[in-house]
């Protein structure tokens, strides 16, 4: 087993639970905390009284965001989370995973960036998935009115589409299309009163992009989105091996320049001269990557990069990525 795999085994998986106001986040949390699944979760919440569960692993937090002095204009981080996760690590044996809830109005970027910025947090935890709870009844209107809501969709690895009993099938299809327009690669789970199987929410291995990319809807490859203001997602495959140094130079220049608009980028890369797959991920300008073990037997060694954000220039991104070929 490689060192990387050893490390990721020891790391505590963290699920970030975000969602619109009134979408049913608390119901879902209560469901996670009370259901019989044989696993224990520490939960970092932002409103104590809300949760009707008596649990010494529930921690009240204050969403305290600060700006890093690292030259990244959009690098805001949750300092309270660094402290709380550090403290939770002192009783690591007491739980199997951590769930971080954010308020309905919060931009998910600071919480996601926290997992890139702090060394201790990076060392001891791994961001398993961003789960966004969406209220089917109000979602279309909320997306019109709130940029934070759009970001919550853009950042999501998993979307729980709640209250589906309040809308008809045509509406549901419209909602799904709207979500896919923002984030084509997200897993969508329809639900009523947060009744989703927990296996759909927890232990997603969110950044095991191989899995995420399996969900790739082909029709999107042919669709050009040209909404000026809208958040869209784009995916770029390259079948030849990629030159590692050239890729890093290109992506860091790109994120430095456009990181404010590129909310999230992620990919699986086949670097020339390496047998292992390289998983790349970034939140705005903060990027990270790691070799994650060999390609499967008979698998096509195709590199693929996904961008989710605003003002994405498809030809330019494609040319840039293709210029990294070894």
């Amino acid at each position, binding site marked *: 087993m490689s060192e990387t795999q050893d490390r990721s085994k020891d790391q505590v998986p963290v699920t970030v639970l975000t969602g619109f106001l009134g979408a049913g986040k608390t119901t879902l949390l209560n469901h996670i905390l009370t259901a019989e699944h044989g696993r224990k979760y520490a939960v970092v919440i932002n409103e104590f009284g809300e949760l009707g569960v008596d649990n010494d692993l529930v921690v009240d937090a*204050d969403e305290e965001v*600060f*700006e*890093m*002095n690292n030259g990244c204009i959009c690098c805001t*981080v949750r*300092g309270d989370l660094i402290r709380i996760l550090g403290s939770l690590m002192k*009783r690591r044996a007491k739980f199997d995973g951590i769930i971080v809830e954010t308020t309905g109005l919060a931009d998910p970027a600071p919480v996601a960036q926290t997992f890139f*910025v702090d*060394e201790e947090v990076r060392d001891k935890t791994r961001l398993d998935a961003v789960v966004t709870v969406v209220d089917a009844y109000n979602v279309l209107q909320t997306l019109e009115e709130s940029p934070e809501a759009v970001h919550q969709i853009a950042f999501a690895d998993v979307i729980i589409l709640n209250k589906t009993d309040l809308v008809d099938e045509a509406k549901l299809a419209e909602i799904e299309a709207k979500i896919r327009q923002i984030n084509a690669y997200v897993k969508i789970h329809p639900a009523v009163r947060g009744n989703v199987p927990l296996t759909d929410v927890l232990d997603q291995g969110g950044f095991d992009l191989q899995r995420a990319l399996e969900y790739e809807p082909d029709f999107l490859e042919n669709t050009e989105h040209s909404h000026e203001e809208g958040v869209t997602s784009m995916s770029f495959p390259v079948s030849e091996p990629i030159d590692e140094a050239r890729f890093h130079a290109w992506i860091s220049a790109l994120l430095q320049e456009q990181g404010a608009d590129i909310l999230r980028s992620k990919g699986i890369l086949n670097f020339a001269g390496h047998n292992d797959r390289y998983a790349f991920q970034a939140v705005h300008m903060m990027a990270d990557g790691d070799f994650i073990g060999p390609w499967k037997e008979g698998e096509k060694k195709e590199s693929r990069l996904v961008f989710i954000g605003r003002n994405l220039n498809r030809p330019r991104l494609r040319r840039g990525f293709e210029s990294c070929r070894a």
Partner: protein
Amino acid sequence: MSDKATLSGIVAERGAEQAVEGHITACCASRDNSSFAFATGEGDLLIAPRETIRDTATWTTVQAHDGPVLALSPDVTGSGFLSGGEDCRLKRTVGGAVEELAKARRWIEHVACWSDGRKGTIAFASGKEVHLRGADGATALRTLEHPSTVSGIVFDAKGKRIAASHYNGASMWFVNSKDSTAKVYEWKGSHIGIAIHPAGEALITSMQENDLHGWRLSDGHNMRMSGYPTKVMSLAFTRNGKWLATSGADSVILWPFFNGGPMGKPPSELPGIPGVLCTRVATHPQQDVVVAGFADGTVLMMDQSSERVLPVCSAGGGSVTALSFSADGCILGYGTEDGRVGVVDLTAPA
């Protein structure tokens, strides 16, 4: 309990070690130097009496908190300890007896106590608030409000002022003043720890971006001390304030606070362990001796003038997470993230 025969370093000749359950979060000696306590992530205080410190059978364990102990301090007088925890309680432990002094709304992450031996002031930080209490621990004196969660508190040497670090700087308050506003020292970013010069010349904070920031207290002049590969989790001025010893590199970094330093002066380095991070430092209260704990569990004692290095204990038990001298300089204690605790009696004949 570990076998003394297998110990190496001066702990083998002059001290004792024990293995306990839980992460060691802090350690210190009581005000009268009669006992030495270790706090754990399980909520316990492990107390070693000075007289029989090498006989671990005489050490006692007291459950002080429900959940991890986050902060530990000697009480104002006597053999007691003050502690704060994730249970949001401030506790006083004397012998085997635990008394609750306060219940806060947030975790009590920092406890400080200034004492002149008779009277004193107790402070604890809970969320954005620092609470000041009289020596009895029951009399509430003041509540100091800060713009964000307090990440460290420190009294000046005379107990007249208390400083707290937080986002975008630090706040300095006069303890006995009725004036409700703080002198705020501003610097953008997240400040995660604090120290004050023993003669009140400077206030130093540790920052999220792996460097230190400081303010000269006479005129508010900013100082910046950078070059660390990791966050500085531990900082301590030497007894006379000439040097600031810090963790955060694979050797002990010492910044000079004389001849105009640290501005424009490079730091000195004491020997370390190549490739192994220093995680905790403590300075001797009477001599020019610095002790350093490392990420592999090693503790080294170093004489600043001769640069002589004395191993206190060898690697094991994970990162050193607690390290402290008693106020009389006679006892050194250390603890690690995997529950290895040790004490050394520096007065004992070798």
